[in-house]
Structures are given as structure tokens and as C-alpha cells.
């Protein structure tokens, strides 16, 4: 009884599938058009791989006090350590091989940045979605809270939080999440407000789907593009903020040196000519943040429909 209806649609054929590039592939090819993006992504992936592989490619575990020898302190780049290996980037005041310490520090910096970014993203976007969907007074209260949060300097808020909570990786992550959730909430709320007015949401309402389902299955997936962009940029921001806190001595403890702690350790030797203790971790931090930001910039260009050709 239904076969004859296919005939009516015969003139109304879909464009052949070959011509329609899948969105992901189109996105990838646009992303790689820029050589800066290619270099930045390569650099970022290299940094991540080096950080992950640190225990296998470094001569020393800087957290293991048995492997650290104070006699090796403040050695210049290229000097030979007491244990026999060459310290290509020199050593710091406590005798830690800087090359090893930087890779181990990168692990901590990246882990803190990514963990706080992901947690803030989840919490912030749920709050933003809720605000946009609820509307009215609920939305006003949440968004004024966001404004309040964003009006404080991020470093100041984080400093206060760390001062209250104390030292430690978990506390740093809590402080960073508190600083960052508002960015995600504001971004998601903006795009959710746009999506909410589209007809497919009305259709979902008309089909009697539950509110939770409409928010999570219909609105949220369509807000992902700006969220990815803010996510990358905010992760870089979190890494920089963690380094700032550690540099100021309120972040991570001396026994688990992140890049910020390493820079702070070398600070006192700068004027005595032992530049490497601060400069090499600083360069590593710079490269990490710059490469994440460049990737984030490119993502923004590619994902922004207003800029697309």
C-alpha cells in the first residue's frame, strides 16, 4: 500500500552522496589549510607525547629524592651529573636535572589544566544550559552570578581560593574550576538561547519529549562548537594561572614541581648568571600555551559560521 508513494518522490532526489562532504572531513581540511595551525598542532601533540612518556625518556625521576643529588646543584647546561648522564639543560638548586624536571612538570601543568578545564566545562555548561532553558528570574540570577564572577580578576579569585583551601593539586583544580566555570556558562547560554528559538526545538516540544531530553539531546549538541573553542583557550589560561600561583608559592608544593615552581626556583639565581634554571621551564610553558592558543584560534576561525567562506 505504500510502494506507490516512492514514485512521487522520484523527481525530488537527494544530491549524490559523493558531493556532500561529511562535516568532520570538511572541518579537518579547513583546519589544516593554515600552516600556523599545522605547526601549532604538531607542537602541541609533541609536547603532550613528551609529557606522557616522561618516565621512559628522562634520566632521572625528579620526585624521587633518592635519585636527586644535591652535589649536582646548579650545573650548567651540558654538564655531566654525578650519576653519569649528561644534563643537557643543566640542573636547578636542588640538583634536579632540568630536562627531566621540565617533562615531569609538563605532566602536572597539563593534567591540572585539562582536569580543571573539563570539570569547569561540564559544570559551567550545565549551569548555562539550565539558565537558558529555564529563562525568567532563574536565568537573571544565574547570569548576574556569572557577571560577578567574571568581574573579579581571575588570578585574584584563584589566590583567595588557594589561600582558603591550602596547597595541593586537588585544591588548585577546585580553585581553577571556580575561576573558569563562568566563561563556559556564558558561552553555552548564548548559543543555547539561539538554538532554543529554532523550529526543531518547537518540534521536540510538540512531540512531548521531556525537558531533560530536549536540553541534553537537542540543544546541547548544537552548542558544542563554541564550547570547544572556549575549552581550548581556557585550558591554556588554566595552565598559565596554575604557573602563576605556583610561582607565587601558593600553588603546588616544592616536592612536586610544576613548571611554575621550577621557574620560581630559578628566579633567585637569575642575577648570578644561572639563567637556565628559570628560562628553560619558562620556554616550555610559553611553547605549551602558545601552541594551545594557536590551535584554539584556528578552531574559532573554522567553527565560526560568520567567518566561513
Amino acid at each position: 500500500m505504500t510502494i506507490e508513494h516512492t514514485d512521487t518522490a522520484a523527481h525530488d532526489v537527494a544530491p549524490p552522496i559523493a558531493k556532500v562532504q561529511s562535516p568532520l572531513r570538511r572541518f579537518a581540511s579547513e583546519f589544516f589549510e593554515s600552516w600556523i595551525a599545522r605547526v601549532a598542532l604538531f607542537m602541541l601533540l609533541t609536547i603532550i607525547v613528551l609529557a606522557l612518556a616522561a618516565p621512559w625518556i628522562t634520566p632521572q625521576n625528579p620526585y624521587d629524592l633518592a635519585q636527586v643529588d644535591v652535589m649536582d646543584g646548579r650545573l650548567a647546561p651540558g654538564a655531566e651529573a654525578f650519576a653519569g648522564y649528561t644534563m643537557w639543560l643543566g640542573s636547578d638548586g636542588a640538583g634536579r636535572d632540568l630536562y627531566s624536571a621540565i617533562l615531569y612538570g609538563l605532566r602536572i601543568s597539563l593534567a591540572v589544566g585539562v582536569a580543571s578545564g573539563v570539570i569547569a566545562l561540564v559544570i559551567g555548561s550545565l549551569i548555562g544550559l539550565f539558565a537558558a532553558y529555564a529563562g525568567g528570574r532563574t536565568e537573571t540570577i544565574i547570569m548576574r552570578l556569572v557577571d560577578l564572577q567574571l568581574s573579579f580578576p581571575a588570578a585574584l579569585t584563584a589566590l583567595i581560593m588557594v589561600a582558603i583551601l591550602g596547597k595541593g593539586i586537588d585544591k588548585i583544580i577546585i580553585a581553577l574550576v571556580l575561576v573558569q566555570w563562568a566563561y563556559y556558562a556564558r558561552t553555552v547560554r548564548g548559543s543555547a538561547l539561539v538554538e532554543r528559538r529554532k523550529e526543531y526545538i518547537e518540534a521536540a516540544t510538540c512531540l512531548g519529549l521531556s525537558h531533560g531530553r530536549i536540553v541534553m539531546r537537542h540543544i546541547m549538541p548544537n552548542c558544542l562548537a563554541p564550547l570547544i573553542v572556549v575549552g581550548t583557550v581556557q585550558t591554556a589560561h588554566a595552565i598559565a594561572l596554575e604557573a602563576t600561583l605556583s610561582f607565587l608559592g601558593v600553588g603546588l608544593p616544592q616536592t612536586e614541581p610544576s613548571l611554575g615552581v621550577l621557574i620560581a626556583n630559578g628566579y633567585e639565581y637569575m642575577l648570578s648568571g644561572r639563567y637556565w634554571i628559570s628560562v628553560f621551564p619558562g620556554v616550555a610553558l610559553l611553547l605549551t600555551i602558545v601552541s594551545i592558543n594557536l590551535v584554539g584560534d584556528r578552531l574559532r576561525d573554522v567553527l565560526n559560521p560568520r567567518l566561513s567562506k
Partner: protein
Amino acid sequence: MTAPILEVRNASKRFSKSLDFAAKLARRMGANVSEETVHAVDGVDLAIMPGEVVGLVGESGCGKSTLGRMVAGIMPPSDGSIIFEGVDIAGMDGAEARKAALEVQMIFQDPFASLNPRMRVEQIIGEAPLFHGIVSRAELSDYVDDIMRRTGLDPTLKRRYPHQFSGGQRQRIGIARALAVKPRFLVCDEAIAALDVSIQAQVINLFVDLREELDLTYLFISHDLSVVEHISDRVVIMYLGRVVESAPIADIFDAPNHPYTVALLNEAPRLDQRRRVFEPVKGEIPSPIDPPPGCHFHPRCPHAHARCSAERPVLREIAPGRLSACHLND
């Protein structure tokens, strides 16, 4: 005589922009500021019989889409009630309300905005029936195939995303999505206005076929009388939030009663009037924020007299099955 499947009783929809803090302060200081309220739909009565196809026509901004959305249960009316099979929708709760909501579905104007771009066709069509337990997960695939065939879509394309389809096919997906919850009443909001003319005819034919097969009732919203003429049994004309005339399709084209209907029909392009110079209805459609008093049409009406600007004409029966709201009938 059978009871209407759906009845709209004195329904209104107002959208108001509440005053912000500065405006409230200005008013307290004595400034002449008041809340701006748009009467999108203003006291509409409408009864639709089972199996009937009612065309709802009017200029853009006359409130026909708002009325459609109220009927489909997407927005609640500010005043009045929507009655489905004798029961007020607003008074229902739980399972009963859900059932009534599914009985009335809507087809949207824009086939690009009305499908979720991140879902595959099978998810778009199959989500609601699965959610409401109309089909089990095991039967879902066959169920979606069947509905796609009914709406003239090739079931082998169900793994594709909406952007891989043409406008006409997307509209068919929208129709399939609505049919998947087994509705008995479809509100088609300018459902073919965004399509190419050649595709329009196909989609209209699909609507006609589905009506016969599935015993559907339609509220067919359009700004285009010629489209409505094809499919409708009865036409309801709206102007600035009010119904001005309601009549069977033949009567409205042969003997329009309300001056607004006359004006609309005069401007519809016809083969026998090819050489005519068309003049738009004189004047602008007034702002619904500040509608004219009395009959809303009087500033543009060639027959307006003193009473028209003072008293709102009532929609009354002027002949069997024909309603009109005009003082000229008295």
C-alpha cells in the same frame, strides 16, 4: 452532526515586553511609559470537524502562526481555551495530557531549521515513538522504514543527516517525524512556502494522500490563497489577530463577504486577469501593538463608516456554514 475534533474558544495570545528598571523609574517620575503588549491573537473562535481540512489565511503578522502553535500545544493561550475532543487541553494532566499532545502535531515552515542538524534521519523520526513507548526498540527500525516509505522517502537513506537532503525531502522528513507518533490532527504552518514550486505540488499531493490513508484532519496555514484552494474544504481568513471570515472553499472564491477577503482575492494572480495592473491593499498593515479601534480593518476598508471605528464587529453566521465579522451585513 458530529462533534468537532478540535475547538478554539475565545483564545487570545498576548506578548508583552515588561518594563526594565530604567523604564519603571521613568514612570515613577511621571514619564508616559507603559508596557508594550502585542495582541498576536485576539479572541479567536474556531471549530474543526474530524476529517476536515481548514485553510487559515492572512497577511504575515496577522497571528496565524501563533494560533497554529497554540492549537499544536507549543504555546499556551493567554486567555480562552483549546478543546480537543471535548476536553480542555489545559485541564488535563499526566498521561492524558501527553496523549492529547501527541494527537496534534505540527509541520513547520522552514525545512532547514525544523530538523536537528546533529541527528540522523532515523533518530529524528524514531526518537519520539521510542520515547513514548509506541514501538519497542526491536521494532523501531521497521517502523521508521514504513513511515519513510509512506512519506515518499527511501528507507536506505535513514542513516544520513538532514544536510544531505534537498528541501522537499527535508520537508518529508518533518512530516514523517510528525506521523511517527500517530497523530490525528496536523497543523501545517506554511508547510510548503519555503519549497520550489514543482516540489510544492508534490508535497501537497502527499498531504492529500496521507489524509485519505490515515484519516487526518488538517489546519493548513498559508498566506497563499491558491495553495489553500487546492487542499482545503473551508477557509478561515485572519486579519490582525482576529478571524474576519470563515466559509466553504467554493463560496469564498465565488462570493466573498468581508471587504478584506474581497481585497485579498482581487490581488491573487489569475489566468483570466492577466492584463490587470495589481494594486496592493491600500495602506500598511497596522501595528499589532496599537491596533485601530473597532474593526481592525477600517483604516484600509473602502466601505468604512462611523460605526466601524467605534464598535468591534462580531463574527456571526450570515448563511449556513458561513461566518463573517463585518458591520455591512447588518
